Every structure is written in structure tokens, then in C-alpha cells.
């Protein structure tokens, strides 16, 4: 068919692979920091050195020291484990709850579908941060509870995606083609439906991990996360905030670390997404 559509495809090849490579490397680096913080840290994260407090960034203290003279860079490195893990756990909670809801809606018949859709309508009406705050008010503060709260707040997004995707795949012509070939429902679900639903969920989860890390830091900024002196990025932000007028680096660098994590997982998620669209 001839169409006069002036459609320019984004250039493929090296240029479009760059974000994937950078994102992948960055995520690998983050994983390494997470697993082996002592390889990267230059100082102990919890050793006070009051004489050396509020030192600006220098060769000895790459990102300066805080109000107790602790090395900001080393605290960032050790804080990564908690901050990123909370985000990851929250995402797992959201994906598991959301998939259960979404599959129930897609497979449970008309009424289950209506019930789940209306439930998520209501659920989505609450801003994520506020919903997480409500959950914390009910189950109490702390690192684990923060992860659960964020996961609960993110659940409806995964639920909607899984439901929509499952229905689309179930009604797709290729699932019908399997039926025409005489292939049974269980085999069709395993061979066609699950893998094709899983792809987009992985993409959303990798993008969602970024916002979960941000939300976790936000909640611990409010003093609801892990207790000091445990190094954690949100808590470091909160502490540094009081000294913003004199020592900006204490609060600014933890935030920059969060941004770096978000950018890395987003780049990777987008790369996976564009690959799956091809």
C-alpha cells in the first residue's frame, strides 16, 4: 500500500544503543556498590571525627564531611544498600500485589474485572506519597514498613498494566491461532500469555524502581525511615538540611545519588522497552 505518511523512524544503531549501554553499566556499578560497599568507600561510614566536621569536598574527603566529621562519600556508598534495597523491595511488593489483582481481574470473569477496576479507580485517587503515609500511620515507621507502604501505593499501576496486557494478549489473534491449532488453555497460558504479559511488567518495574527509591528517600526525609546513625540517603538529606546555609554538600550529594540511580534504571527500562517494541 502506498501512503504518503512522512514518518521518520528514530535512528537505530549505535546512537540509540548508547542509553542502553550507559544505563546497563550504571546499573551494574550500582549493584557492585550495593554488594561490596567496602571496595568503594574511603572511610568508615560511622566514625565520628568532630575536629574535622563540615570540611568541604577535598582530595581526602571527596564529597566533604558532615556535622560529625563523617565522610559523606563513604556514607553515600554504604547508604546505597539500604536506600536502593527499600526501593527494590517496594517494587517487588507492588509487582506481586498488582499482578495478583490484575490476573484476578483478567481471568476471574466480568464481575471480578469490574470489582478490581473500581477498586483501582479509588486506589489511584490517592496520591502515592499520601497513601504511603497512611499505610505508615497504620503499621508504623521503619525501613521495612516504608518499603511495604510504597509498594502498596504503587500496586494499582501494576494491577492495571497486568490486567490490560493479559486481556489484550488473551484476545490477540496469536492466542486464537493457538486455539485453532488445538492447543489447550494451560499450554497457551504458559507459552503465550505469561511471557507476553511479563515483558511490559519488567519495563514498568524498572522505571518504577526509580520512583520507589525517590519515595523511600522522601519518607525517610520526613523521619519515618531507618533511624540514625544508619547511613541512608533520605536520612542524610534530612540531617544535612539543617546545615544548608554553611555546608551545602551534606544534603546535596545524597540527592544527587538518588538522581543518578533514577537516571540509570530509567535508561535501562527505556532501552528494554524500545527493544521489546521492535
Amino acid at each position, binding site marked *: 500500500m502506498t*501512503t*504518503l*505518511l*512522512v*514518518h*521518520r523512524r528514530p535512528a537505530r544503531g549505535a546512537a540509540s544503543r548508547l542509553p542502553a549501554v550507559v544505563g546497563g553499566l550504571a546499573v551494574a556499578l550500582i549493584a557492585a556498590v550495593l554488594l561490596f560497599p567496602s571496595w568503594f568507600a574511603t572511610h568508615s561510614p560511622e566514625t565520628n571525627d568532630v575536629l574535622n566536621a563540615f570540611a568541604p569536598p577535598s582530595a581526602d574527603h571527596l564529597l566533604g564531611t558532615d556535622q560529625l566529621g563523617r565522610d559523606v562519600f563513604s556514607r553515600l556508598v554504604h547508604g546505597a544498600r539500604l536506600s536502593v534495597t527499600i526501593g527494590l523491595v517496594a517494587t517487588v511488593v507492588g509487582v506481586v500485589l498488582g499482578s495478583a489483582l490484575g490476573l484476578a481481574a483478567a481471568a476471574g470473569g466480568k464481575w471480578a474485572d469490574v470489582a478490581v477496576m*473500581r*477498586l483501582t*479507580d*479509588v*486506589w*489511584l*485517587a*490517592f*496520591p*502515592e*506519597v*499520601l*497513601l504511603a*503515609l*497512611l*499505610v*505508615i*500511620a*497504620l*503499621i*508504623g*515507621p521503619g525501613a521495612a514498613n516504608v518499603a511495604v507502604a510504597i509498594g502498596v501505593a504503587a500496586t494499582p499501576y501494576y494491577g492495571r498494566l497486568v490486567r490490560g496486557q493479559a486481556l489484550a494478549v488473551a484476545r490477540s489473534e496469536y492466542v486464537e491461532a493457538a486455539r485453532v491449532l488445538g492447543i489447550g488453555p494451560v499450554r497457551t497460558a504458559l507459552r503465550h500469555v505469561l511471557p507476553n504479559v511479563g515483558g511490559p511488567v519488567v519495563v514498568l518495574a524498572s522505571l518504577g524502581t*526509580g520512583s520507589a527509591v*525517590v519515595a523511600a*528517600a*522522601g519518607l525517610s*526525609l*520526613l*523521619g*519515618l525511615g531507618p533511624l540514625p546513625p544508619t547511613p541512608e540517603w533520605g536520612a542524610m*538529606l534530612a540531617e*544535612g*538540611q539543617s546545615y*544548608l*546555609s554553611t555546608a*551545602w554538600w551534606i*544534603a*546535596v550529594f545524597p*540527592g*544527587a545519588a*538518588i*538522581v543518578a540511580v*533514577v*537516571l540509570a534504571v*530509567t535508561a535501562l527500562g527505556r532501552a528494554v522497552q524500545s527493544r521489546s517494541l521492535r
Partner: protein
Amino acid sequence: MRSVLRRVVAGVAVLWGAVTLTFLAVALTGGNQVDSVIGPDAASVPGLREQVAAQYGLDRPLVVQYADRLGGLLTGDLGRSYQRGQSVWGLLADQVGPTLALAATAAVTGVGLAVLLAVATAGRGRAVRRAASALEALIVALPPFWLGIVLLSVFSFGLRWFPAFGADGPASLVLPALALALPIAGVLAQVMRQELEVAEGRPFALSARARGLGERQLLLRHTLRHALLPVTTLSAWTVGTLVGGAVLVEQVFSRPGLGRVLVEAVKHRDTPVVTAVVTLAALVFVVTSALADLLYPVIDARLRTEEGR
């Protein structure tokens, strides 16, 4: 007209669902509510628990409590704070204003910036578009609370252009509103540019160019309108989330508002206050998304279902 009515009914239904869901959540995790009123020190005093439970009506059957809750909401009664003992509405009344002012300013700024950015860069060369979308991707990744901290250290402590805290006058609104608005502007501009580019590739755009239309006119007469549809949806959603984001930004800028009350309430597990704020945010979301829904048919005639062929 019927569609307006239907939208209002749907909005009320969502709100009712929100109230019910929060009530159920509190009831199911129950138990600790009386404890949060008493506090840990007085927990051992005999008979105190029962007395407090009766005082707050927590000894009644759940159905009665639920009916009482709904009835109270209809008359504007949000219940009483466990922590301070006073009415929730009394606690919140003064704080709603500053938060809504911040959220509204940020919403208008964010949407305005996004449209400006997208329109200014649409139809430009590849390099301009690339740079703009890289900038947007970066901005989107910035958490508002950290953006607030950076803005504070540069413009308040560094350049001393704006006050560092408080809520006195418009100058104090600039930095917090920007901290909230920039990431939103990034998201909206991203979506809008994508939509503009999709619309520019559609066959109708070719028809328009073949009539002699220039790129700028094409944007103003055709594609902008197409890009507005998804942006309207997203704007409604972001305005809803703004109320949530405002809580954190208020904390960073030490502004009065719902944020301060809410954080206190969460720390003391003061559920009546928390549910009231959360429900209020849901109300804002329901209202904005209803407005967006009513706006669609104005933009897109295909959605005016009443009109036949």
C-alpha cells in the same frame, strides 16, 4: 448534559470508595488506635483503655462507626484528633489554604512551562529536539524535595534572592513552587513533544502541508490540539499528585500547610487526621480528573457521543 451528571456521580462514587477503603484499612489494622490516643506511658493504667475507647466511640460495632463516619462527612465533621483531642477540621482549616496555593501555583507553572518548551522546540532541527528531550529526561528524574534543597542553597543561601523558609508573600512561594513544577513540566513536555511528533507524521499533516501550510501554522492550527488531549489527562493526574509532593516540599522549606500537620499525625499514628488529609487529596484528584474529562469533548469532537451522523 447527561455526561456531566454521569461524571459527577462517578466522582462521588470514587470518593465514597476512598472513604470506605480508608475506614476499612484503619479498622483492619485496628487494635492500636486506642494505644495511640493513650500513649505508651499511660498504657498500664487500669480502665483507661475502655474509657478512651468509649470517649472516641471506638467501642461501638464497626457498622455503626462506619455510618457515623459517612454521616459526619456529609455535615463536614471529619472526627477528632487522637493526639490533640480537638476536631480534625479545626486542625486543618488554616493549613489547607497555603498547601492549595502552593499546589495550584506549581500546577499552572508546570503546565505553562511544558507547553512553552514543547512549542518552542517542536518542528526545530534534530539537535534542538535532542537537547530538549535530554533536558526533560534529566528534570523528570529530580525529586522535588531535593530540587528544593538545591534551589535553597543556590538562591536563598547563595544569592539571597528569596527567603529560605516561611510563607510570607509571593516571594516565599517562588522556590517551592518551582521545585514542584519543574519535574512536572519535564514529564508534560516529554509527552507533549512525542504527541506533536506523532501528529506531525500523520497523514492529515501531509494534507495540510500540501495545501501550503508552514510548520508554525501546522503546529498552531492542527498538531497542538492533538497533543493537548493526552496532556490534559496527564495534567489532571499530576495536579492530584502535587498535593502529595507538596507535603515533602513544605517540609524542606519549613512552610506551614497540610504537610506539617500530616507528618506529625503520621508519627503519632493519629489516623483521623491522616485519613482526613488523604481523603482531601482524593477529592482534589477526583475534581481535577472530572474537569479533564469534561474538557475532552471540547478538544475532540469525536467524543461528543450525542451527535449522530
